């Protein structure tokens, strides 16, 4: 089963994704995607690790090409990718290039995610819904939103189930919960 989960911030997307991963059974991998940029990120990562404690996840760090996970992990396992947003951000604004926009890298990252969704037995992809406000953003922020939306739509098409999470509740747009 493959799932695409999106919704607003702090609505319970990660929690639902973890519950689904546990329910699917078998070997579980948590694909950690966030590159820490300081104390605040370190604290967030620490909190996420504490949240997952006891759920039996093996953490695989992957910051760019999701296919790299398959070097060490078993493709028949359950992969929780949290989040698509961080992966695209890492590629589109690479830290080592002083965060200068790299559109081609973002496209490569998106292609890899779609391929990955087609290869693994079970995958859960968590993204962020950042598309419904009345703000006029800078060109680079608009490009970021567009790149993320493009991959969201491709993953929504590729995955068996598409869920929007709102206040902890699952709104199912496609497929079945389990």
């Amino acid at each position, binding site marked *: 089963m493959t799932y*695409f989960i*999106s919704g*607003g911030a702090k609505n319970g997307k990660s929690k639902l994704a973890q519950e689904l991963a546990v329910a699917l059974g078998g070997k579980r991998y948590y694909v950690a995607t966030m590159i820490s940029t300081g104390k605040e990120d370190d604290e967030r990562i620490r909190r996420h690790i504490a949240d997952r404690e006891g759920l039996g996840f093996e953490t695989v760090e992957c910051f760019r090409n999701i296919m790299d996970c398959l070097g060490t992990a078993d493709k028949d396992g359950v992969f929780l990718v949290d989040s698509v947003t961080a992966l695209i951000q890492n590629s589109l604004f690479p830290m080592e290039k002083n965060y200068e926009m790299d559109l081609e890298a973002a496209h490569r990252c998106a292609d890899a995610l779609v391929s990955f969704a087609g290869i693994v037995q079970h995958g859960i992809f968590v993204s962020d*819904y950042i*598309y*419904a*406000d*009345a*703000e*006029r953003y800078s060109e680079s922020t608009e490009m970021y*939103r*567009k790149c993320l*939306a*493009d991959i*969201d*739509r491709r*993953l*929504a*098409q590729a995955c068996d189930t*598409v869920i*929007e999470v709102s206040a902890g509740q699952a*709104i199912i*747009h*496609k497929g079945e919960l389990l």
Partner: protein
Amino acid sequence: MVLIIGGAYQGKLDYARAAFRLCDEDIFTCTGGEIDFSRRCIHRIEEFVFSCPDALGYFKAHREEWEDSILICRDIFCGVVPMGEENRAWRRDTGRLCQYLAGEAAQVSRIFCGLEQRSK
């Protein structure tokens, strides 16, 4: 009339093209305060609202011209209240117009990540 709403880049126009078999000539993309209602599909209504001092009045005055249209508007309603007065008015007027249009519509569809959710 069919109203299609959804956040930025969610595939609203792609949905309309496929569901109603639209070609490029059928689509009017709003860039200012006037709309060509002779086209079947009016896209980016939020941009029309941005440029029109009385968007709701304009739509009411042209009621008969869009009765069978496909109207597409971006959801700009879920963020923090905008700091700028212009954007606050834009959000308010777009929201009021969408509520009116949704009331008049035979079908209201919300597009989420390319998928349609029918709310009316």
